[in-house]
């Protein structure tokens, strides 16, 4: 019983810790090698959330002129425009250029590779994230339509302009898996004749064939991913863009914004850790009480041991090691259960929550937990041990039941 409670406590504690680490690494692995994210002025966290994590809504846009201005700067190596605002069955559509697949990096500077197919070339080509393709069971050649807005169900569908799936990305464990990619021009094309988010009569005349002949250069975009020629210049570029004259801009360094964002999330994480620490503490008290309650019935045992010459320290050692053994067995079984379950559930976890980096094998941390729990229990075991020792001295050898 005590072993089970300790096992549960250790299980929870280590599970929370592993999830936390997994969440954190996958969080930090989301974007790398991008020096700045530029968007309309809002909050830096907000900007990162909607441009990278696809959470929340963009407030306003950046004009195409500004984008060209930034691209022309000599200290900038590359730029990737992003245009948001549409979705396909709840998955967000990212309007961008093929440069996105060259410059967007995650983890240790890894590029998202293609599992199938290629980048969009034609106006109505579309590339799917791995999860989108798997969930919706799409393959190359599938014809899909986009919806206006970011909700899972939309009332205004761009049914008149179907897209053809030409590429599916390899899974990355980032929000990319849940995104759909088209060219910037495609975003323009499906909105020809639209005004403030509603279809006008004119749009019905804009058939795909006609649209192809139009000028589809966008007037504005949502955000820009920027790579500086050298890292050192990043801060200067950031300052320049934040004080950009023609329109209010905001440039954020992804790493800085991410760690600020994590700071907010980590409160929850610390609360979880505290809860599991308490669970362990309760388990410890469980050990203590079970030994203490057993002590009365074991007065005879202590007397026998004393009678055959066991010294005080033997009695103490017996009870302390008993507590330690209980805790150790509990902790080990907790860890074993956890990793057994992790092994069994990790594919599901990765898909469901994108926590791909959770540890699959016990490490040093688990060793410390087991050691800590055992030592704490041994220390607690001193309490019944000393009580037993005192009692065995006063009881003498004359216990009768």
């Amino acid at each position, binding site marked *: 019983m005590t072993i089970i409670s300790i096992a549960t406590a250790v299980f929870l504690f280590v599970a929370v810790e592993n999830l936390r680490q997994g969440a954190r690494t996958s969080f930090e692995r989301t974007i790398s090698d991008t020096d700045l994210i530029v968007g309309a002025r809002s909050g830096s966290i907000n900007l990162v959330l909607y441009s990278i994590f696809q959470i929340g809504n963009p407030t306003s846009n950046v004009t195409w002129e500004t984008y060209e201005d930034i691209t022309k700067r000599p200290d900038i190596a590359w730029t990737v425009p992003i245009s948001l605002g549409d979705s396909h069955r709840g998955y967000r559509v990212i309007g961008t250029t093929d440069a996105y697949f060259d410059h967007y990096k995650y983890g240790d500077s890894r590029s998202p590779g293609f599992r199938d197919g290629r980048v969009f070339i034609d106006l109505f080509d579309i590339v799917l994230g791995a999860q989108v393709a798997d969930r919706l069971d799409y393959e190359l050649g599938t014809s899909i339509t986009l919806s206006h807005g970011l909700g899972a169900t939309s009332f205004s569908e761009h049914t008149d302009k179907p897209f053809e799936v030409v590429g599916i990305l390899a899974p990355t464990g980032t929000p990319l898996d849940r995104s759909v990619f088209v060219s910037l021009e495609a975003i323009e094309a499906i909105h020809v004749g639209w005004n403030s988010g509603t279809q006008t009569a004119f749009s019905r005349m804009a058939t795909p064939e006609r649209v192809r002949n139009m000028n589809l250069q966008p007037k504005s975009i949502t955000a820009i991913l920027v790579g500086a020629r050298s890292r050192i210049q990043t801060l200067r570029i950031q300052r320049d863009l934040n004080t950009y004259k023609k329109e209010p801009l905001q440039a954020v360094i992804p790493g800085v914004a991410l760690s600020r964002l994590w700071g907010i999330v980590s409160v929850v994480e610390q609360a979880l850790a505290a809860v599991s620490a308490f669970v362990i503490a309760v388990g410890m008290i469980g050990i203590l009480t079970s030994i203490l309650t057993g002590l009365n019935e074991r007065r*005879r*045992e202590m*007397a*026998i*041991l*004393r*009678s*055959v*010459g*066991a*010294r*005080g320290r*033997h009695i103490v050692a017996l009870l302390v090691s008993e507590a330690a053994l209980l805790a150790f067995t509990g902790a080990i079984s907790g860890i074993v259960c956890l990793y057994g379950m992790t092994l069994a559930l990790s594919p599901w976890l990765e898909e469901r929550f994108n926590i791909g980096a959770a540890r699959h094998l016990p490490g040093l941390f688990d060793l410390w937990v087991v050691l800590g729990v055992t030592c704490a229990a041994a220390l607690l075991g001193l309490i019944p041990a000393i009580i037993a020792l005192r009692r*065995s*001295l006063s009881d*003498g*050898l*004359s216990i*009768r*039941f």
Partner: protein
Amino acid sequence: MSIDEAVLSLQDVLFGWTPGSELLRIRAFSIKRGQSVFLRGPSGSGKSTLLGLVSGVIAPDAGRIDICGQDLVRIPGSRRDVLRADHLGIIFQQFNLLPYLDVIQNVTLPCRFSKLRRDKAREMTKTVTGQAIHLAESLGLSSADISKTVSELSVGQQQRVAVARALIGGPDLIIADEPTSALDHKNRDRFIEILNDQRHRFNSSLLFVSHDETLSSHFDEALDLSDINTRAQS
């Protein structure tokens, strides 16, 4: 060591559980090597307390208690534990055995705490376990009994295991605290005969405490606790 040498001797021992209330006052009491003493007394007369004093678990308020020439009262507690392990074998009334150990482990228990008794046990047979099996068998336990768990043994068998444990490594003094009270009459006499037979082999003395006077014929000397406890007389 001479035959007359006292294995146990008490001098002017004084003890009370609470200050002011005196339970025991023993001017002089001793047991010689190889001698068996039957000590009787009604319950509550201080028999068990006396055993606690003799085994060095309880400290007297005054006086001297020697075990094989060493004064229990004046040596530190850890030395007392060693002395007890080396020189005393103790048998309780009942439930003498640790249920989580097997029969042989129970018998060899004193050898874990006393190097002296471990060495003595090895002198006779090559291993401590061998000695334990030998003792158990000479006490009338079959090899089938020996392989049983402690809780499967009858009370009489358990008491024999306790005797084997008290005897292993040939301690100088066996202390038996009403070891027969849980046995029926026939088993009682048989038990004491076996105990006496075996202890003679080791030349161990025996202090046997009981309220059952019918047993006194088995011993070299029979005393009433009130004979040596002068407090009870005054």
